[in-house]
């Protein structure tokens, strides 16, 4: 029994890792006032590029870097449409998802079903991994797990405590005022969209080279959309995103745990999505003001207007 609980929680951490990475990126992006619905597509691009580069070079970290670069470059499409062209961000983000799913399918076609022989070893943290229960759950994990938590904490510090982070938040709350303070709104919004893209692609890299060690079309399986929901659930705070993501990782894993009990697998597969809606509803019932998004989220900013 003890083993099952430890194993389940361990897996929940693994399943939550890509969610945390993508959510952190989307938080930064949305804090600048840009809604990016392209997460799912960028994640797929990251997954396929990381897989191809890792397979051909044999270096997983090279794959990770290539994925991040791809994600950032690819997100320029959304940044250009939503910042420069002041286009509708919902539509532009959907287009980015379509393109990402499409290109990843095309690029990855020769690699479908090929297993990756390179394994990323777990990092066993000395001393801490000896703690009963917690040691196995939290301190015997793949490098992506530590990276995700580290980046979320850094992002929290970046947004809350650094000058650039505060400027990014101000472009999301009141771009007009930010501009009068000498902030270049367009440049910061571009930057935020690109950072968000890098994070999404990193989440994809985790899926293909660490989580499943293979590539298949559509392997992101809606995780990008869940990350967008988690952004709201985390109330646009990367710190809160940490436990939100791992809670949802738990919803993914609990499916496999309950399946032997004879509960319909389809019903269990619904759980993460139902949980998303219920939790948003709970937050809204408790304190609707908390659901306040950055004031200018998804509103195009036009210089010198009014």
């Amino acid at each position, binding site marked *: 029994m003890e083993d099952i609980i430890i194993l389940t929680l361990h897996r929940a951490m693994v399943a939550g890792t890509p969610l945390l990475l993508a959510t952190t990126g989307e938080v930064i992006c949305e804090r600048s006032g840009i809604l990016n*619905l392209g997460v799912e597509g960028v994640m797929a691009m990251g997954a396929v590029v990381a897989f191809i580069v890792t397979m051909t070079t044999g270096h997983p970290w090279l794959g990770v870097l290539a994925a991040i670069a791809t994600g950032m470059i690819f997100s320029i*499409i959304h940044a250009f*449409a939503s910042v420069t*062209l*002041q*286009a*509708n961000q*919902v*539509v*532009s983000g*959907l*287009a*980015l*998802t*379509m*393109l*990402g*799913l*499409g*290109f*990843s*399918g*095309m690029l990855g*076609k020769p690699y479908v079903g090929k297993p990756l022989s390179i394994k990323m070893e777990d990092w066993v943290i000395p001393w801490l991994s000896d703690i009963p229960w917690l040691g196995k759950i939290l301190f015997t994990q793949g490098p992506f797990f530590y990276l995700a938590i580290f980046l979320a904490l850094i992002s929290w510090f970046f947004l809350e405590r650094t000058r650039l982070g505060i400027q990014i938040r101000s472009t999301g709350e009141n771009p007009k005022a930010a501009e009068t303070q000498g902030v270049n709104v367009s440049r910061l919004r571009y930057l935020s969209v690109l950072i968000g893209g890098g994070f999404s692609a990193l989440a994809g890299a985790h899926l293909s080279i660490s989580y499943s060690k293979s590539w298949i*079309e559509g392997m992101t399986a*809606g995780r990008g*959309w869940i990350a*967008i*929901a988690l952004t*709201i659930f985390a109330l646009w705070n990367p710190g809160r995103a940490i436990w939100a993501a791992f809670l949802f990782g738990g919803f993914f894993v609990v499916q496999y745990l309950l399946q032997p009990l004879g509960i*319909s697998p*389809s*019903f269990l*597969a*619904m759980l993460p*999505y*139902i949980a*998303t*809606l219920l939790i*948003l*509803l709970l937050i*809204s*019932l408790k304190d*609707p003001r908390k*659901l306040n*998004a950055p004031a200018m989220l998804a509103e195009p900013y036009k210089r010198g207007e009014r």
Partner: protein
Amino acid sequence: MIKIKTTDRYNITALKSFMTNILSLLAALVMISIIFLIAGVNPIYAITEIFSGSFGSLYGFKETLTKAIPLILIGTGLTLAFRAKFWNIGAEGQMLMGAIFATWTGLTFGEALPSYIIVPLIFLAGFIGGAVWGIIPAILKIKYSINEVISTLMLNYICAEFLTMLIVGPWKGKTRFGFPGTNNLPDSAILGLIPGSRIHYATLILALICAIVLCVIIYKTRFGYEARVVGENPDAGRYAGINFLKTGLILMVISGGLAGFAGVGEVAGIHHYLGYPASISSGYGFTAIIVAWLAKLNPLYTVISGIFFAGILVGGDAIQISLGLPAATVQIVNGTLLIFLIMGDYFLNHKITLRFSNK
């Protein structure tokens, strides 16, 4: 030095808007050609293949019209929702819920009833199913300020899993020999086809009627006006005393209901039983978003843009087979078209002048 100056355009005529769309589509076609070229496919061959596969033969065109039916229905409903800036991304789920309701009605009452009663009944059931699934995000948004993009997406997944649960469990038909899926609908509930095709004409006619009716609703009724005000200027709407909850509910009943109609057509016209979600809808709910956008959110134009995108779906299937391209190719084509349409909108609404100065 070259300076770029942009100014707003105000006198946008229907012709200008139409020409911009055509130019955007052509520009997108160039971009798609470049992508094909990089992928090592002869672009002229591939694009000719797409359009000759869908519009070049009678068989192809019949298939195109068949796939246009759900796209027109869903796209039409989306024009209304999008005009009120209600971002309904959940047409896929609303369509499936319509299919579920229609199947239940057909299987339960179909045996005992003649065609002229059961067919309207399953369409009504499908509409209700889609509407129910559409109302949920409307309530969540207006009463509980939960973003509709998220809720409609989550409801897509929930509905697809719910459908799967039904067809592998309680609704599994004895005639399927253990494979997932319901029994076939009784003959009286099955829609007639235009001979030699898969075009279920009842749904096609319904789609055309819906496009016209929606056009009247949006441009000629008080409700349509209120929906547009809610989208374009919510503050003014609040001062004018528009009931946001009522408007939102009605518009999602219509938008979801039309998607439900599309689900009925697929089940009663094509498959004749309820199977896996991916077989009922090949992403019609998402493609219809581009259909609505290309139609500039005018329900009548969704008829044309619906047929156009149905053509891309059919042609996309054709090049998958003939050129060995992955299924994802259609997504690339669709995404590129959408991006170029957005860019076209910018040039339609802004005048761009280049100034040369000797600095």
